[in-house]
């Protein structure tokens, strides 16, 4: 059984470790390209949201390498379309002739039984499974740490692109390493490397918050590396959406209740997906006196589209610059660049007005 899964930001490193650890033969597609997205869109239902199309593009790529099973997350709590992804993806693959391909669904309820099933099939020991989980968790932490550091360093670095280079190199090494020992060694090394980057000490870059749908916020290939672009234009980017955020919210329900309480004046009910989180985060950024908020969503995403008028209302009330970018397979990078540049100018002005 050769398995694969769609790309999701830099987290493929984590998933790969996890599934290899329990004895699966993991074959990954290459990083998402524009061509992948195009091909995925060709075989997927027209009105579906972008992530499904990108995933299918990844699948088509992986199929050329002999994969026969895909893993897909199924959202059983929310009311968004992510719940039906695996079914629709399997149907789409069957329709174009890959009739013995399976898309396995993972959800909050069947996650551990599924893992156990796979583990028993591959005759992996419990000891190894636990070690794998620990290592995956450490890798997850490190990936998020790296991304966060990079977001902080990018606007401050003197030699443009130095941070990015270190980040890419480290992620590659992180992908290869197998034990916890190597990982802690890498961690030390990387901290030294980050310290060596020369930064401008006495500047206060303008701050931009990224909110919106988790896939488009996290995956650089889909959002045209928005974090990197903004960073190199001199913005310090912040985002709360990440895989660990998603996992934490799944495990601790009171996080959701807290958010619901905070956003009550604006929205009284959940709208599924990360709609409520977007409002909560935006309110937070307004409170922290940020210089701009960028809202990312796949074109026609149900929860995000529902909350967008509310975000716009917050923007009008508080005066914080706001940009909403809908992404789909027809969006071109040049268009996004122009809009980002214009937005950065607005945010800079906002920042200057604030400081003087």
């Amino acid at each position: 059984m050769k398995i694969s899964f769609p790309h999701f930001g830099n987290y493929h490193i984590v998933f790969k470790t996890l599934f290899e650890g329990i004895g699966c033969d993991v074959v990954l597609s290459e990083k998402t390209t524009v061509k992948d997205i195009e091909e995925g869109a060709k075989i997927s239902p027209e009105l579906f949201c972008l992530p499904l199309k990108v995933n299918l593009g990844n699948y088509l790529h992986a199929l050329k390498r002999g994969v026969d099973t895909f893993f897909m997350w199924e959202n059983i709590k929310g009311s968004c379309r992510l719940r039906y992804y695996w079914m629709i993806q399997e149907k789409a693959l069957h329709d174009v002739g890959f009739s013995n391909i399976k898309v396995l669904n993972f959800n909050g309820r069947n996650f551990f039984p599924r893992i156990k099933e796979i583990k028993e099939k591959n005759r992996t020991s419990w000891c190894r499974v636990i070690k794998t989980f620990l290592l995956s968790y450490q890798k997850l932490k490190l990936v998020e740490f790296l991304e966060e550091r990079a977001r902080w360093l990018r606007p401050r670095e003197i030699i443009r692109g130095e941070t990015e280079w270190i980040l890419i190199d480290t992620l590659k090494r992180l992908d290869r390493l197998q034990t916890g020992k190597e990982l802690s060694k890498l961690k030390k090394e990387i901290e030294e490397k980050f310290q060596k980057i020369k930064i401008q000490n006495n500047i206060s870059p303008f701050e931009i918050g990224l909110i919106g749908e988790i896939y488009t916020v996290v995956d650089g290939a889909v959002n045209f590396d928005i974090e990197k672009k903004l960073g190199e234009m001199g913005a310090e980017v912040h985002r709360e959406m990440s895989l660990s955020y998603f996992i934490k919210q799944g495990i601790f329900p009171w996080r959701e209740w807290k958010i619901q309480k905070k956003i009550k004046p604006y929205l009284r009910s959940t709208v599924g997906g990360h709609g409520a989180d977007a409002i909560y985060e935006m309110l937070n950024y307004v409170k922290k006196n940020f210089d701009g908020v960028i809202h990312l969503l796949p074109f026609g995403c149900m929860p995000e589209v529902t909350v967008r008028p509310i975000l716009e209302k917050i923007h009008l009330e508080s005066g914080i610059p706001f940009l909403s970018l809908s992404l789909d397979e027809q969006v071109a990078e040049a268009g996004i660049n122009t809009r980002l540049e214009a937005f950065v100018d607005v945010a800079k002005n906002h920042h200057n007005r604030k400081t003087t």
Partner: protein
Amino acid sequence: MEKRLASLTSLSLGFMIIGIPRALIYWKRPYFWETFFESLGCKVILSPPTNKEIVEKGVKVADPETCFSNKVYWGHLLWFEDLEEKVDYIFIPLLKTNQEKLEYCLKFFGIPDLSKILVKTPILTETFDEKKEKFGKTVERLGKNINKSKKEIKKALTLSFLKEKELKKQEEQDFFEKAHSTQPKIVLISHPYNLYDEYVNLRIDDKLKKTGAQIIFIDEVPIKNIKPPELAILETEAQKFHWEFGGEILGKIDEVLKYNISGAIEISSFQCGCDAVLKEFVEKKIKQNRIPFLYLLIDEHTGEAGFQTRLEAFIDTI
């Protein structure tokens, strides 16, 4: 004594006027809320059937990416703002889950809160979440908001339920009449807010009737105790639709297929997220039975001529 006082005050104040937009959630339970508020002694104003002006108004204020049905709803809502005789309240329920504990479309969840941004008229709303609370109780709370006693509400509720039942019965009779006719029968599959809104669906039933076909709305098909049919794509692990209409529509299609149908048309509004999922299963089901299938998308730019051509071509295949 108290009763007399209450009636006196209501007389001096005049009737409470309640506006209900005739779109989207209204069609989930047509006539029910009207009867309910009328028997409570309120005056009910419905917005007029959808017309061009209303759609234009709605499209102007709506988020460009919400579904067409939502845009139409905003248009109806704004109609009340421009009204000379102001309504006291606009009634917009927050529909979350229905009796079978299945969810409504998630765009319904945001409607009351988004309406507050759009209009200044106070909004009468209550959360209908039958996972947490019985329907009757929610209605009681709703009545309390407009100062009605429990007794009055109970009476009004029974009246509205009766009226709803009557309509259902009528519908059922109509359906059997249609089902047993010898003309070619065409099923229209869609949500009630697309089926019954004549402007939105470009009078599709009139157009089809002119060609001599018998139209069956999927909404009219009677089925008793529908259990959401399981989507057995993976036979080992079937999963249910969590949307209220998903199971219902698929169940009704199963039922209607018994009556020798000659064609099926699915109408969905542009950017309807639920239909993107549902269409896959509806199409599969109908194509399995070797019945011609036409999928029509409607939005504010849909031209009547293009619609007509496609319908005619479809009729020719039957």
